[in-house]
């Protein structure tokens, strides 16, 4: 294992490529998502996506915000060489909904909202509420890990350059 700080910076691109691939998968290969969690009924981009384009020493940040916002500007940014650095995701099972933001460089979850549970009123309620919350958070963490593992297996394989990147390029310029 390399030094943590060094590998964090050196391989920051991996998380950004994962989020870019994830957007491609959401648009084109939803079966990959449902393979990772067959309870899911929908998994889509939420209310925010941030792209970053490094051109020589300049960095352009493109943020698209809002429910049901059009993502055409995002695709245009990908054509110019940008990658996704942050994405808000929304997923639903039959009667539950999660929403959270993933940052490419850290893959940490932020603004994670899990399905609402009973309000904690007494000390006795706390233990159950904690266990529920852990379970509901873990469901999303496991999903993200499974998708990331799927991505990383592709990323280190010959398929990445041979098949996946051409497919993503085709989607970007469609």
């Amino acid at each position: 294992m390399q030094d943590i700080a060094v590998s964090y910076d050196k391989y920051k691109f991996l998380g950004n490529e994962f989020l870019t691939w994830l957007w491609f998968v959401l648009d084109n290969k939803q079966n990959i998502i449902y393979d990772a969690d067959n309870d899911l009924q929908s998994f889509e981009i939420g209310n925010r996506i941030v792209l970053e384009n490094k051109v020589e020493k300049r960095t352009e940040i493109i943020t698209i915000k809002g429910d049901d916002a059009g993502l055409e500007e995002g695709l245009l940014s990908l054509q110019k060489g940008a990658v996704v650095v942050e994405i808000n995701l929304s997923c639903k099972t039959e009667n539950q909904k999660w929403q959270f933001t993933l940052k490419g460089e850290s893959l940490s979850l932020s603004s994670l909202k899990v399905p609402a549970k009973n309000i904690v009123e007494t000390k006795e309620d706390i233990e159950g509420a904690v266990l529920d919350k852990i379970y509901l958070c873990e469901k999303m963490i496991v999903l993200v890990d499974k998708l990331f593992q799927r991505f990383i297996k592709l990323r280190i394989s010959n398929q990445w350059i041979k098949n996946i990147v051409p497919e993503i390029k085709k989607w970007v310029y469609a």
Partner: protein
Amino acid sequence: MGLLSSSVSITRYKVHGKIDAPLIQNITEALKKYSINEIDNDPSDKIVGWTSFENPFQPDFEVSSLVIGTHFVFSLRTDKKTIPAKVIQKHCAIETAKRLKECGRDFLSKNEKKMIKDHVMNVLYLRIPATPNIYDIVWNYEDKKLWFFSNLKRANEELETLFVKSFNIVLIRLFPFSIADLESGLSDTERDILSQLSHTTFSK
């Protein structure tokens, strides 16, 4: 944003190392040893320590339930006093004028000015209360996984430092490379390929 808040942020860690048996007793002892102390009425400007999840302002690891299900649940608390720069400036000016009058001079040396500032800061730190920040922790000891309920860089650094000091075991932050390297079940050959990757261009 605590564990039971409606919206949470989570930084994930892999816990590298083991704690001697008896596990619960040793973890409780370490938490008690490095639990937070109050710094109100004290000249300290900052303190970091463990606190209990249920009673973060009156940490008591004997009374509060540390173990919930298969998890250890506790919190990191950082108390910090912040004095506005203009308040410091005002009190330094008052103290400087008083000192000049006492010694009958027109100016103070650099060292005297520093002593005045240190004195002013000490007096002000004694007078103002510290602002507490609480970050919850869920530690699944068996799975060697720990969730820290904050993405703030400073708070994560405080956690990593205090954790190794308290338990003598290291937290490895999980981010894309470390998840790929440690958590994705890659073979040695695949890990070699991983370490040699460079970025992809998706544009023509």
